[in-house]
């Protein structure tokens, strides 16, 4: 019972939010609203699942929001450039998807290599690449907005807006990635190694774990998931600019911490991250649906809930240590 309450904390908060939302506005539980909230959560959700691995291994990545904007930018440029030769078909869209995913691998590898090979603090590395990616997309867009060709947009649009019934593709992808992520963290060798490195990397090294390679892999995995998020993001508005993905990194990190993963590493909980992501998007949604407080205070409410969620866990942890 004692342990259950501790791990189930975020879940209890989520259920409480759902009940609150339903009580405040009957439109809250309508399928259309649920679809909206889940689909919107998918971008941060995919990134946060990857972030769970990076943080669990004792790392951090501040560049993911800028990286998403940059990948969206180059994917749009690639599709627009390929259009005259490949024509208006799914092949061209696949080119864009490929560019986003491969770009994600490259960007994640860059972060990971700087952390593991050049041995620079992850905070500093990713603070640097955050600025680099953000400037690059602003530069590519000439300070404005990169827009996908109208015909391609129409073709690509269903990737965000359609799906199986009211369960749209972003929701499906998010669910699959979450399940795979949870399985990997709990049952695969990679997941165990990541947790071992995060709790004590020296011991992990003595246990013949290739610490640097595993760390590098967590950043590459995160890069791939950022690329996947971009694949789903581009069809939504068909554009990217310097203001795309601003603060996504902090939302992703907040979701990971709310979910019960330790910021200092060593203990990762992917399902908790998923709950954290849902909590964050539900707060936004409920604040919009119900005129509870002045919109000026939305940020404050979010802040209070994030801190509360972490405080609950912290109290539990110190109690255990005693």
């Amino acid at each position, binding site marked *: 019972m004692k342990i259950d309450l501790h791990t189930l904390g975020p879940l209890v908060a989520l259920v409480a939010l759902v009940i609150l939302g339903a009580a405040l506005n009957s439109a809250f539980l309508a399928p259309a609203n649920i679809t909206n909230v889940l689909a919107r959560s998918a971008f941060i959700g995919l990134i946060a699942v990857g972030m769970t691995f990076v943080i669990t291994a004792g790392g951090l990545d501040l560049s993911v929001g800028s990286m998403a904007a940059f990948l969206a930018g180059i994917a749009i440029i690639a599709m627009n450039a390929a259009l005259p030769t490949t024509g208006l078909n799914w092949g061209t869209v696949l080119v864009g998807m490929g560019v986003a995913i491969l770009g994600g691998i490259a960007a994640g590898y860059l972060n990971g290599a700087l952390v593991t090979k050049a041995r620079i603090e992850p905070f500093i590395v990713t603070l640097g690449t955050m600025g680099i990616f953000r400037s690059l997309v602003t530069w590519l*867009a000439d*300070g*404005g907005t990169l827009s996908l060709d109208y015909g391609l947009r129409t073709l690509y649009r269903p990737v965000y807006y359609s799906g199986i019934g009211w369960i749209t593709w972003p929701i499906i992808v998010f669910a699959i990635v979450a399940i795979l992520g949870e399985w990997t963290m709990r049952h695969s060798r990679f997941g165990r190694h990541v947790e071992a490195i995060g709790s004590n990397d020296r011991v992990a090294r003595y246990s013949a774990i290739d610490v640097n390679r595993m760390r590098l892999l967590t950043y590459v995995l995160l890069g791939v998931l950022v690329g996947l998020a971009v694949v789903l993001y581009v069809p939504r508005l068909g554009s990217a*600019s*310097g*203001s795309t993905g601003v603060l996504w990194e902090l939302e992703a990190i907040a979701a990971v911490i709310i979910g019960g993963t330790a910021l200092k590493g060593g203990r990762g909980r992917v399902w908790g991250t998923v709950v954290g992501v849902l909590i964050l998007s539900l707060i936004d949604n409920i604040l919009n649906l119900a005129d509870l407080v002045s*919109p000026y205070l939305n940020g404050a409410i979010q802040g209070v809930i994030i801190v509360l969620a972490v405080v609950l866990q912290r109290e539990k942890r110190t109690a255990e240590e005693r």
Partner: protein
Amino acid sequence: MKRRSLMKAAALMAAMGIAAPAVAQEAEKKIIGVSIPSATHGFMGGLNWHAQDTIKRLGAAYPNLEFVLSTAGDPAKQVNDIEDMMATRNIDALVVLPFESEPLTAPVKAVKDAGKFVTVVDRGLSQEGIEDLYVAGDNTAFGRVAGEYFKENLEPGAKVVVLRGIPTTLDNERVDAFRAALEGSEVEILDMQHGNWNRDDAFAVMQDYLAKYPQIDAVWAADDDMAIGVLEAISAANRQDEMWVIGGAGMKEIVKRIMEGDKQLPVNVTYPPALISSAIEMTALNFVSNAPMTGRFIISSQLITPENAEQFYYPDSPF
């Protein structure tokens, strides 16, 4: 090297019989510093483009004018930029679009106290009487023109939702004027939430409006970036035929759709990013002409309709 060639040119001109005073004036170099926020969203992107474009053009037209352009991502960096311009480039004039009024007031006043010509653009300083020239868009008119259009084109009992920008005085002025213009009409404002002049935020806010309100007749998106997000949310909910959307600032994609007579986007209200060009040009004229260039210059907000849209369409600008 430069001075020698200038003297050579002067000698040559004198030899050719050109009046000497004109040559003296030519030789006097004036440096104009331009400090603006960096291109973080569509409107500022347009403003950056117009600033660079104007500087290039004026630099070619007036060889004795030199420009220093810096863009800043936050108020602290902008203060540093201005201090650097004073210390290392010894500017003769400053054109500044303050990131925020309060933190920039003292540094800009220091420039003025040093005897430089100061032009303040768009956002006033928190102390009056510092600047020589004030160039700005008209935020009150921006809200009023939109509000009047809503009042005239909606039936009594119509319901409207509003997306606000980043919480600032500028946004408050617009929204207050919009409210005032609607006063006395039977049009009801259902909700006002912040979309932060951002496409993604506006998309999410509009989705929630659509979930919350079964009847919406019109949307004041107050910015064209937000209008794009709003339109996408409306079409995802399949409610395109129920409501129209008014953005603002005259983004080229939106102006084009107005030109084509899009029913969802009947009109738009200008708040031209090219106002920075007016400011730079007028500051330059202060040094190259006798025309008096001090005072306040307010650029009015106009209604873009399908009939006049063509004159507001700049296909080369990124905005």
